[in-house]
Every structure is written in C-alpha cells, then in structure tokens.
C-alpha cells in the first residue's frame, strides 16, 4: 500500500481526480495541498495552512521590549528574522539609533542564520525529493515510485553531503550564538542594538567557523545544486506561477540603511517597480478570519480568528501588493538584486545547460521561477551572502559599543521590514500607554502560501502548482516538489 489515495475515483485513465497531501512534509509548520489532476496535469490547487496560534493577539498588552523575544517563537528555523524585524520596528517606535557596531553584529547574527537556513533547506528538507536516502527511518518509507534519478555515485556523494551538512548547519548556529547568545531563539538582539560587544577572540572564533562553512558552500552546496538540477532538467520547465515577486530588502550595509545587500524592489508583469509599503493589503475571504477584517493595511490590521467560517480553507491570510499576488524568497531577491552568479555556477550553467549566464536574470524568468530555479536561486543567494559576511567581519570593531538605550515611549508606532530566508517579512507595532496596543506581522509564508484573495486570485504557490505534471496520482511527487522549492 503506497501513494496517495484520490478523493474521487478517476473517470478512466485521463479522468479528473482530486488528491490531498496532508501533511506536506519537509517544510516548517502545517500545510495541506489539495490538487485536482486532469489528463496528468494539475488544473486546480488549494493550499491550506492548518495551524493557528495567535501571536498578534498574544502580544497585545505586553511590554513592547518583550516582542523581540516572543516573536522569535513564530519559527524555530528563522527566529533571527523575526527578532531582526521586531527590533527594527522597536528601534523605529522608540526612536533609537543603533550604533554601527550594533548594526554589524546584528548582520553577523542574522547572516549566519541565512547560511544555516538555506543549507538546512536544500539538504534536510528538499534533498529527499531528488536523493535516495539510506534504507532506514526517517529516510524510509517513501513513495513506491519516487522518481529518484541520480546515478549511483552521485547519489552516494549526495547522501554523504546530507550528513556533512548536518554538521555544517550546526556550525552556522555556533556562529549565530557567538553574538546571539544561543540558537534557536537568540537572546542577543534587543531594541537599540545587540547585547554583547564583540571581543577579538569571539570574532576569531566566528571567522574560523565561517571559513569552514564557506568552503562547504563554495565546494559542495552550490555545485551540487546545479548537478542535481542537471539530472532533473524537466523541473526547470514548470512551477513558474505568476513570475511576480517582491523583496523588502535586508542587511543594511550602512547606518542610514539606504544600502541593502539584498535589495528592495518589486517586479510585476515583467516590469521593475519601486516598493511602496502602502500598497500592501491582507485579504481573508478564503481564510479562517472574520470577513470584517479583510482588505486592511497591516498598520490597521486586525486578527479575529473564525475557524468554522464556511468557504474558507486556510489559517493563512492573503497579502496582496497593489492587488497582485507576489512571491518572495531567494528567487525574488536574486531577481531584484540581480547579482553576478557564483563562478562555479556560471561554469556549470555553461557545461551542463549550454547557457551563458553572468547575472541571475540571464537565466531568464522561465528557468529562474521554475521549481529547480528556486533551488538554484537559494544556492546562489547563499554564495552571495558570503561576501557580505566577509565585509562585516572586516568592518566590525572589537570593543566598540553595540547598544544604545532608550525609554519605552508612552505612545508610538514603528515598522520593521526585512527578509526572512524564505521571504519578505514586516513587523508593525503600535504602542499606547507604554504597552503593545496592536502588533501585526506579515511573514514569508503569508506571501507565498496564501489561499485565494477576495477576488478569487490564487496565491503564488497555488498558481505555481497549476500545470504541474502528475502522471501517477499514487506517486504525485511533483506536487510537493513545487511546494518545497518555496521553502514554506
């Protein structure tokens, strides 16, 4: 017995069948994918976020400074993203200027977790879509027909790397903890900066670990992303979705925060646009929230769960930018930033794909926004982060102040925009009587894994699923491959 049993028996070999994958595994959190397959291709998709906690309501009434600790518990893979966004919102609301060394230690902490998160994603979340693991739990059981195509020697090397990557991502967390205190859930980031002035010794320890991680990224992770891609070339031909994307930008390279390593921008219907935060609205017609709270900007956001609302199918709200569904994450950031590809990436694109590409956009939007394109984007972004960390290590100063104190304002508001490894993230805080009056979060998962909006427009991952080949509904491997490429 294996595979996914369809909800309705297919009417003949080319009939229509709706299948549900619940849980979608190897993601963070709870997700269900329901797809309708007709003639071997997905024609409809509904993505359901099946878990709700209520951080926004739990935060109300609390000391504003507690926010940057509590919000990290939204996600144990990317707590540094929530910590960073929250601290930025608090910096904004408290009107405090983070010292240069505070900005740099925040970047070093957050940056190290970018490396961890991407390595974890490719090897420990996505790889089993392409690599056959050992015949031991949790690598078995698997689909009877898993469509794993790597030649034996490459597969064996990939398994070795899976195990080595467990060690490498652990080392990344040691880097995070160097100034973050511990990881997951760092102690070291607060409103006004960071809590620990780096010593020369701590910087040497961080740098030594960075050297190890860097070697793995350059010599193993990036090349293997392309090598695996070459064995699954058809995965470059579907999963594109809308090809619209957004990036809030992240990693300020100057104190004025005007220069961001991962750039800010929007790309819709083939055109670049400047980012205007006022154009963000969240819709809830198909989400388990009160209909009266639909169409709001996060600064006026309301969180009123309605778990039994008919017609709704997800706990994820549907954010839209100027009415458009836009995806976020590494491919969005690499597309907006358009950096030069890694040298090994340029070489492998030529050798394995006969493609002359110098910058990310040279891949073309069809390849870039495909299933495999998203994995390549994540690998290239990991490479692109290396030079930033190198720069921060040169700029950070041992012994120099990283923290500026500030009083809790009686009444204020603040917003923090950043990019979690998996996508755009904004935290908004409204303070009254020195307590949190409203706190709203629009996270990466919301941007990508949302259900239809009030006008019936599919969410980005739902749209990406349309057209996905599913030749065998008992082994619908491509469905979760599309989803996992977004790193939900």
């Amino acid at each position, binding site marked *: 017995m294996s595979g996914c049993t369809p909800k309705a028996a297919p009417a003949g070999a080319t009939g229509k069948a709706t299948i549900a*994958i619940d849980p979608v*595994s*190897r993601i963070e959190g709870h997700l269900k994918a329901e797809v309708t397959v007709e003639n071997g291709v997905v024609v409809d998709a509904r993505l359901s976020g099946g878990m*709700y906690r209520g951080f926004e309501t739990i935060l109300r009434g609390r000391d504003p400074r507690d926010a940057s600790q509590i919000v990290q518990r939204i996600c144990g893979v990317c707590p540094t993203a929530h910590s960073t966004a929250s601290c930025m919102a608090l910096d904004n609301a408290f009107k405090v200027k983070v010292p240069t060394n505070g900005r740099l230690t925040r970047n070093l902490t957050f940056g190290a977790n970018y490396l961890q998160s991407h390595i*974890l994603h490719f090897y420990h979340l996505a790889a089993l879509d392409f690599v056959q693991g050992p015949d031991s739990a949790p690598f078995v059981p698997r689909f009877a027909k898993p469509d794993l195509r790597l030649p034996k020697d490459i597969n064996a090397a990939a398994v070795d790397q899976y195990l080595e990557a467990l060690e490498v991502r652990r080392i990344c967390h040691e880097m995070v903890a160097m100034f973050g205190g*511990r990881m997951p859930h760092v102690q070291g980031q607060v409103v006004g900066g960071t809590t620990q002035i780096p010593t020369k010794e701590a910087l040497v320890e961080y740098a030594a670990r960075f050297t190890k991680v860097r070697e793995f990224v350059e010599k193993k992770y990036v090349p293997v992303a392309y090598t695996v891609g070459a064995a699954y070339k058809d995965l470059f031909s579907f999963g594109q979705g809308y090809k619209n994307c957004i990036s809030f930008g992240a990693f300020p390279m100057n104190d004025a925060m005007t220069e961001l390593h991962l750039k800010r921008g929007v790309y819709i219907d083939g055109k670049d646009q400047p980012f205007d935060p006022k154009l963000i609205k969240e819709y809830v017609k198909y989400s388990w929230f009160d209909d009266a709270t639909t169409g709001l900007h996060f600064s006026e956001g309301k969180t009123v769960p309605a778990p039994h609302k008919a017609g709704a199918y997800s706990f994820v709200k549907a954010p839209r930018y100027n009415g458009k569904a836009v995806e976020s994450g590494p491919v969005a950031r690499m597309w907006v930033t358009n950096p030069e590809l890694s040298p090994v990436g340029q070489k492998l694109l030529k050798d394995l794909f006969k493609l002359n590409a110098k910058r990310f956009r040279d891949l073309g939007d069809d390849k870039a926004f495909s299933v495999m394109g998203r994995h390549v984007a994540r690998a290239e972004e990991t490479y692109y982060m290396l030079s930033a960390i190198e720069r921060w290590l040169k700029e950070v100063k041992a012994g120099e102040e990283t*923290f500026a104190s500030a009083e809790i304002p009686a009444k204020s508001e603040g917003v923090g925009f950043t990019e979690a490894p998996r996508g755009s993230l904004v935290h908004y805080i409204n303070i009254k009587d020195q307590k949190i009056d409203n706190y709203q979060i629009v996270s990466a998962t919301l941007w990508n894994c949302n259900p239809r909006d009030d006008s019936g427009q599919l969410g980005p991952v739902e749209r990406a699923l349309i057209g996905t080949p599913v030749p065998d509904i008992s082994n619908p491997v491509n469905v979760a491959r599309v989803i996992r490429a977004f790193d939900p």
Partner: protein
Amino acid sequence: MSLNRRDFVKLCTGTVAGFGISQMFHPAVCEAISGSLNGERPPVLWLQGQGCTGCSVSLLNSVHPTIADVLLKVISLEFHPTVMAWEGEPAMEHMMKIAEQYKGKYFVVVEGAVPTEADGKYCIIGEAHHKEISMADAMKSVAANAAAVLAVGTCAAYGGIPAAQGSETGAKSVSAFFKENGIATPVVNIPGCPPHPDWIVGTVVVALNAIKAKGLAAGLADVVKLLDADGRPTPFYGRNVHENCPYLEAYDAGKMCETFTKKDGCRYDLGCKGPMSMCDSFERKWNGGVNWCVSNAVCIGCVEPDFPDGKSPFYSA
C-alpha cells in the same frame, strides 16, 4: 551499534556528580544501549502541535552524540513531519500502523502545544483514511498508546507561548491534555524554549538505558523517580541558574550591570530571571559551548512552567 562510550560520557559529564546515580552512566552499561524494547532501535513518533519546530532544530544541534548517530543508531524515527521522506496520508497511515504494531512499546515525542478550542481545528496534523486528524485526535490515540510521551519544549511541557495571556485556541500542555481526558500514559517534560539538545538526547538515552537494564515498566519507573515536581529530569533541571551563576558573587556584592553591554556585574537589574529558573545552562552552555543566555544577555526563564507570562516583562527598565 549505538553510542560509543566516549560520546555518552561527554554527554553526561558534569551533570551527575553528587546525584548518586553515576552507576547508571557507567560506560560499560552505556555500551548496551543499542538493545531496546524490541531488539531494534525503539520506534519514535514525533507529533508537532502548535509549535515552531525550534525544538527539532535545537535537537539537530546535538554534538555528542551527533544527530546523525541519534537518527541512525539510537532511535527509529518513524514519523517526523520536518525530516521524513514520505508525505500525506500514506505517511500518516504508516505512523498509525507502527502505533498499532508496537502498541505500548513505542515512544511519542510531542513538540508544541495541543489546542482544544473549535473542536481541535486550530491544529490539523494530517489526513488518514480520508479523515482530517487534529492534534487533539492524535494525542488521544497515538500518544495515549505510547509507552511514554516526551513533552519536548515548553509548549508541550507547560503550554508555553501558545497558551499565554491573549490566546484564543485553548492551547494545553501534554500533561494537562492527558489529565483532562483521563489518559494515564507517563509523561516526561523536557522544557526549554527551546530545550538544549543535550537535555533531549540525554533524557532519551537515560530512559533507554533504564529500560534495557530493567525492562519497560521498571525502567520507566526509574525515569519517573528522576523527575521533579514539574515533571523535569533533575539531572538537567535540578539546579537553580542564579545559585550556580558565575555572576553570583557580583550579585552578593551588589555589583549590577547598568546596561546590556556593560557586563561587569550581575544581570539581575537588567531583568534576569536566573533566580526563578532551573536548568544547567550555566555549566553546559549553548551551541557547542560558544556562549549562553546570561553571559550574552539575561535569562528569560524559558524552562519554567509559567513562561512567558510569569517571566514578563523580560527586561527591566
């Protein structure tokens, strides 16, 4: 084979002195851990409720033994949504098959709290036999029929952040949920937000060791004897952070840090909750020993039953 002697002794070093149970960690006994309930690695089913996966990620940071060793040599992780190869109904049905096949002899790990409002709808963990299975459903069946449940993380152990003031989901700890539903399956709490990987692996290994030595019932009874009033294993949670803190001397001398970065003193005036927190982070440190919470900032009391509300605000003005 299982953990080698060196790895296991490293894991336990520093936590057993004075407890009179050093015999339990005798290297010769340790080497026998590969045997288990069924002659194979014991099946473990990992259920995720209202959590953040932070506990699983923390576990991945295990140094001695490595997580690879834990997965390949110590346990048989038959279901874990974050790392397992399979997905959907077949994976859920495999979990249920294992639970049936090893009834009363498998372990369940719970990560995250259990929501009880809206008929459990605030957390659906999957579908099996075309039916939606809520976390609450799974607790009453799969978790209830385990030999024991490890409530990993403060959410599972005590409710944690999902159960904090302002919550609307009826989030409950494993123990509270079991009590309300008349389920008597033993629960071991391994709190922390997240817990240190050593606390998780150490407890698993101590339990397996005891079971190997004395059989399931007697072995589990031995483990239960190690638990404090809040269900936490005393080898890891038996000592108070403040009373063992390197800055205790400064506290006694009245020397307090004025800001986060002026670190020449005790952190109490910054809001440190060390005096009301029980764990061995002061000694074990975090992430391969590179740092720990109080050295870096303050303790926020994340292992305690009243986290976060009873430990808020985390910082003093």
